[in-house]
């Protein structure tokens, strides 16, 4: 199974890109989720928001609409847009493996959000490409940095008390 592995350098760059998007799109909240529902990173005021739950539901949403697309015999929808009473949500796929979510209100516009998402998507795709390369190199030279190289079966047993 292919694991998603995230390193310091790429994580920092992703974080920066999300912050940039958050500012330039004048959004309320921006976050990035892997397709299995795990939150990768976020920017903006996540204070009273359960981002873990948000991430899981977003991935469920993408999975469900992806399933609908398939039934209709078309490729996965690459952009979803939900319009709310106050807040709107723009959801898009990046590199076909992670999901970019932008929450915004009337202080900005869908046009601007679209434009900035497009730009950020290009940067993010580059970062994920490099991440892919990096983890396959790491894979080759196994053991060097893996947390599991130091973890024993006893450590695992102990975690579960």
């Amino acid at each position, binding site marked *: *199974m292919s694991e*998603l592995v995230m390193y310091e350098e790429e994580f920092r760059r992703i974080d920066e890109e999300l912050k940039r998007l958050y500012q330039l799109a004048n959004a309320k909240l921006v976050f990035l989720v892997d397709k299995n529902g795990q939150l990768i990173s976020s920017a903006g005021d996540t204070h009273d928001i359960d981002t873990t739950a948000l991430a899981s539901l977003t991935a469920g949403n993408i999975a469900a609409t992806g399933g609908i697309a398939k039934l209709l015999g078309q490729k996965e929808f690459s952009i979803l847009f939900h319009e709310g009473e106050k807040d709107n949500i723009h959801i898009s796929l990046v590199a076909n493996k992670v999901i970019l979510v932008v929450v915004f209100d009337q202080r900005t516009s869908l046009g601007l959000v679209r434009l900035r998402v497009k730009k950020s998507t290009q940067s993010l795709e580059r970062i994920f490409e490099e991440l892919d390369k990096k983890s396959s190199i790491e894979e080759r030279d196994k053991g060097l940095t893996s*947390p599991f190289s130091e973890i024993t079966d006893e450590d695992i047993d102990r975690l579960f008390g």
Partner: protein
Amino acid sequence: MSFINYSTREINCKIVYYGPGLCGKTTNLQFIYKKTAPEQKGKLISLATESERTLFFDFLPLALGDIKGFRVRFHLYTVPGQVFYAASRKLILKGVDGVVFVADSQIERMDANIESLEDLRINLAEYGYELDRLPFVIQYNKRDLPNIVPVGELQKILNPDNVPSYEAIASQGMGVFETLKDVGKQVLKELKKNY
């Protein structure tokens, strides 16, 4: 698909509770939720119908502790059991790291158990996974009911490969954490093997 983040020092894994409708999958998660400390868990999300049947999935994030400075998180999901939710069930299996099959021990649910286990194999195969190679635990639930199949027979029919199995009364919590611990350990050991 587990997610290892070296930057935030987290290991995330996905465990799916599978089984026929009404076998007790949601009840397992509810008990786990009830019995874990607030700092260890997120919200229990249930996408359910008005009659409390699971519509899409239940989701419970759990952080059981740290290993060598890495925070280990498990994301627990259940699938909707009814036959007509086949498409949703398959979606939830995507990227799974470990599976719990919850069997309903009642005699009249044996056919449903067999069918659901077969459905699990087929759905996994469509993603290119094999059940035999995944961390896998079987739970024989509802052991408190009078009309149940003896465990020996359940083993023979549902567990010919003899994977770890537990008797449970999920509604009272019996066997729930034993099941979770076993699959959790298997998932981490499998990750260790691959890294």
